């Protein structure tokens, strides 16, 4: 039977007005009836009856309600964007303020964020990083007190994987000193740290190898793996596998078995070459005694644990293993802990970098204080920018009252309006983000240069960073737009269209609180920056008690430079530009480890006390311009058992200027790195020099530390041989002086690499992190103040616009310009003053906490606060008064005639 369909327009009509939940079964009934009627009485009649039925269904109860369906289709989204864009384009001033503020905020956030992200992702290149731990030794003995060293014994590394089930493998490295590394076929002397790693080193850590096999590269004795950079330096090319290299203190050449990629900048490892451990019967004799070395601190040991191992329990197993095998000296205690690899960079405070010779620099550490200060500053900068947006948008709510009212009247529900405002804020944020990315891109090269890092744009490693940054910024957009959206969409359309003023009290308070918050943070940043600036200036310019200008410090790197120093000194003194030459074991402001001794007055019954030692020749005092307070300087070789001491040491030993002369002191033990050991093979023997002079206290260490007791021994002494030439030169023609000095050193020994530093540069390195932080923080502070002021400017502009009529009337009634400016600025300045009051105690507390790190520091004086307060208020006043003056000067006729 052929079925014909009812007219579709009737069914469509039904669908159009019928409640959706009723539609299906009503239509079913109609269709069933239609079919029957068609059979009974023909199609025309069936159509007619259907028409009648549909018509009679058109009644309340069946018709769908008039509520607007959610319009989340593409057209509406498109409309949001169009309207958002138009609204931004219409209010150019406010849009520009918003975008500029956000751009600045995001730029600060991204740059500082890059820095922080980099600090937090140190050593992330190793795929097993979560399971790698550094073994830390906690030693205590009567001589030393407690020392915490990142090092352990040879056998601990050797036996742990066998004895402790959770330990998958271990690796140990050792930095035994510095030496010339040369290509025997073409000797160019390159001074390098000598690093020895065992065969598992490249397996526990995955330093990427360009050439070579990581499993076998360090297996054979006399193998060496070098980095690309070093290969370029020595050979000028990188395909040098199987070539030979030679350390000048060894007889056997080393075969290159692998080329490493250069370390990424965020790596705690900075070695340029690793040689394999020597074989059992090696003639160079490193291996003597390693089989019994359980408890030394000669090796840096890393352990790779099996997944889900408990580091603490492994550490105590290691302690037990060591104690079961080692014979500790009486009174010595030792236990181990494990430090996760990710903590090595930022959380190694109080842990001495072990497993190295004293002439090897310790690995650079990050400063967790600065990392957290920066993170907070970066987030605050972004927050301030977000607050600006919220403030400006809500403040301008009343200008948009009509728009919102009309929208609501023609059927926009609250959701539409919220979405509308959110889209607007997202457009603003997106524009700001794009601009910020462009600016960051432009700023990156100088920024990299400045913080000494190599950030690049959108590299694989920092994709995650960009993800996080983008998410955070969208979040800021949503939150800062969200408050405005919720607030603006809340109003009743009737009230809106009647032109009632919206004076929602809470909203006004929120805005005030936000402005106060912005300025509190800005003021804290201003104060922080000023204190930092003062401290850094103090660090770099304070009188150290010696003269550091034009002081050239040349490292002693070859044996002959040490043994033949008299000749070198004489030759150097002949160079016209050279004023003084001195040889010393360490120099004031030293960057390598000072040797320490324990000392007491001969015959005294008191305890021995710790003092630092510099070995120096008679020219030392003149070269460094150190004042001799009492007694005499060294004179000649006969003074090899004479010492000078500084005032602190004199106090410590209880020597007064009157009775110190020729006092004999007793020095039985010495610490070359962390541990005190007897100075001579005979435990009971000790060095007994005479005190011949007392020198002025001078800062031979960083200003972070208090001046310690210092003993200046003659250059020929049993504690520390000479390691440096210090040459005081005149400022003219420095390059040619350098050339002449180099010629002398090379004439003395052809293998001389001539490594030199200017002492003032070297001293500045102590504080380079502070200097950098100060600069970064000042920029962030400036940006924050700027952003906050943009916000204030916007608010002031708006307030002035709102009060135009009022101003006009006041003027007509005789108000003068000054009183009008006061009227308009007063409210804002009040807010800034409140902000100052809140920020002062916080800043005072923070600054003092930070300054406590330095034994010598500036005091936080009242005028810093006063200046910061005046600065903040002044800038705010300036910002606001521009608008105030502009408004106050307007001719009242202009304003009032429009009505």
């Amino acid at each position, binding site marked *: 039977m052929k079925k014909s369909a009812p007219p579709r327009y009737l069914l469509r009509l039904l669908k159009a007005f019928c409640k959706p939940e*009723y539609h*299906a*079964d*009503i*239509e*079913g*009934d*109609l*269709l*069933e*009836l239609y*079919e029957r009627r068609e059979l009974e009485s023909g199609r025309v009649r069936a159509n007619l009856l259907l028409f*009648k*039925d549909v*018509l*009679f*269904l*058109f*009644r309340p*109860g*069946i018709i769908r309600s008039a509520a607007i369906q959610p319009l989340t289709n593409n057209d509406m989204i498109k409309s949001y964007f169009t309207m958002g864009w138009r609204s931004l384009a219409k209010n150019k001033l406010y849009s520009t303020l918003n975008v500029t503020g956000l751009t600045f905020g995001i730029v600060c956030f991204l740059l500082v964020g890059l820095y922080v992200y980099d600090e937090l992702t140190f050593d992330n290149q190793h795929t097993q990083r979560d399971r790698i731990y550094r073994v830390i030794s906690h030693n205590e003995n009567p001589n030393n007190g407690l020392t915490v060293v990142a090092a352990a014994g040879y056998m601990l590394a050797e036996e742990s994987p066998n004895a402790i089930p959770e330990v998958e493998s271990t690796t140990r490295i050792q930095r035994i000193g510095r030496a010339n590394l040369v290509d025997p076929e073409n000797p160019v002397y390159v001074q390098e740290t000598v690093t020895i790693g065992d065969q598992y080193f490249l397996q526990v850590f995955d330093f990427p190898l360009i050439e070579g096999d990581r499993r076998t590269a360090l297996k054979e004795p006399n193998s060496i793996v070098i980095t690309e950079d070093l290969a370029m330096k020595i050979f000028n090319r990188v395909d040098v596998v199987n070539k030979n290299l030679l350390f000048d203190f060894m007889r056997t050449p080393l075969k290159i078995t692998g080329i490493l990629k250069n370390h990424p900048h965020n790596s705690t490892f900075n070695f340029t070459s690793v040689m394999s451990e020597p074989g059992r019967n090696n003639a160079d004799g490193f291996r003597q005694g390693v089989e019994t070395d359980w408890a030394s601190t000669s090796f840096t040991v890393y352990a790779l644990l099996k997944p889900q191992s408990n580091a603490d329990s492994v550490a105590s197993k290691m302690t037990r293993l060591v104690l079961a095998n080692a014979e500790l000296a009486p009174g010595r205690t030792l236990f181990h802990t494990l430090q996760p690899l990710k903590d090595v960079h930022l959380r190694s405070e109080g842990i001495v970098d072990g497993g190295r010779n004293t002439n090897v620099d310790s690995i650079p550490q990050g400063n967790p204080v600065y990392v957290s200060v920066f993170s907070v500053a970066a987030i605050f900068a972004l927050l301030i920018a977000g607050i600006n947006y919220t403030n400006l948008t809500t403040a301008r709510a009343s200008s948009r009252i009509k728009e919102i009212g009309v929208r609501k009247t023609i059927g926009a529900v609250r959701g539409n309006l919220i979405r509308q405002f959110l889209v607007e804020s997202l457009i603003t944020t997106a524009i700001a983000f794009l601009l910020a990315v462009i600016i960051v891109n432009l700023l990156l090269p100088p920024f990299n240069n400045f913080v000494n890092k190599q950030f690049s744009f959108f590299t694989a490693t920092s994709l995650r960073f960009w993800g996080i940054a983008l998410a955070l910024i969208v979040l800021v957009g949503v939150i800062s737009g969200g408050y405005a959206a919720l607030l603006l969409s809340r109003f009743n359309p009737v009230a809106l269209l009647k032109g009632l003023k919206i004076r929602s009290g809470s909203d006004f308070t929120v805005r005030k609180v936000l402005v106060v918050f912005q300025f509190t943070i800005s003021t804290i940043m201003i104060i922080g920056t000023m204190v930092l600036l003062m401290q850094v200036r103090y660090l770099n310019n304070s009188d150290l008690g010696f003269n550091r200008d034009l002081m050239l410090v040349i490292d002693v790197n070859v044996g002959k430079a040490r043994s033949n120093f008299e000749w070198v000194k004489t030759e150097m003194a002949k160079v016209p530009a050279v004023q003084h030459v001195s040889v010393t074991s360490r120099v004031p402001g030293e960057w390598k480890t000072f040797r320490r001794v324990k000392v007491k007055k001969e015959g005294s019954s008191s305890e021995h006390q710790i003092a630092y030692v510099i070995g120096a020749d008679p020219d030392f005092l003149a070269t460094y311009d150190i004042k001799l307070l009492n007694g005499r300087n060294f004179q000649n070789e006969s003074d090899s058992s004479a010492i000078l001491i500084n005032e602190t040491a004199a106090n410590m030993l209880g020597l007064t200027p009157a009775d110190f002369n020729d006092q004999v002191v007793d020095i039985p033990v010495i610490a070359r790195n962390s541990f005190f050991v007897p100075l001579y093979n005979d435990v009971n023997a000790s060095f007994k020099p005479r005190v011949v002079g007392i020198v002025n206290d001078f800062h031979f260490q960083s200003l972070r530390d208090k001046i310690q007791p210092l003993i200046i021994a003659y250059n020929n002494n049993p504690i520390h041989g000479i390691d440096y030439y210090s040459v005081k030169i005149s400022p003219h023609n420095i390059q040619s002086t350098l050339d002449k000095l180099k010629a002398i050193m090379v004439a003395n020994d052809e293998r001389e690499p001539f490594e030199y530093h200017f002492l003032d540069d070297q001293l500045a390195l102590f504080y380079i992190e502070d200097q950098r932080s100060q600069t970064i923080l000042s920029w962030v502070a400036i940006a924050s103040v700027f952003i906050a002021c943009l916000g204030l400017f916007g608010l002031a502009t708006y307030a002035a616009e709102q009060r135009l009529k009022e101003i006009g009337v006041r003027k007509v009634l005789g108000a003068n310009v000054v009183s009008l400016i006061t009227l308009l600025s007063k409210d804002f300045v009040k807010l800034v003053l409140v902000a100052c009051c809140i920020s002062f105690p916080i800043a005072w507390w923070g600054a003092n906490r930070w300054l406590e790190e330095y034994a010598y520091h500036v005091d936080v004086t009242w005028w810093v606060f006063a200046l910061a307060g005046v600065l903040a208020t002044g800038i705010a006043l300036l910002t606001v008064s521009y608008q105030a003056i502009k408004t106050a000067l307007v001719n009242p006729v202009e304003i009032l005639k429009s009505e």
Partner: protein
Amino acid sequence: MKKIQLGEFEEVVLLTVGVLHGNAYGVTIKDEIEQRLDREVTIGALQITLRRLESKGFLKSKQGEATESRRGRPKLFFEITAYGKKALVHSKETRDELWNALPNLVLKLK
């Protein structure tokens, strides 16, 4: 017990749903009323009454299967609820009371 008032058509529809017991949906209800009471019922009037009764709680509905003649549209079967029965009983009782109170004389007067 207040407000279980039923309109005349409402009562008819409710009773018809009861009569059809289990097979009461739009078309059958319409047919049944038309046959038994000999009056014309429009879909619109019926539907709105059904929905009203449902929303008052006298009826409940259940979606049935789709048949070919309805082109896949489901039938909506109605059933009297307990409350609906109570309403019917209440309605009948009030009528009976009135009938009983009616003096015989009045009927005879016809």
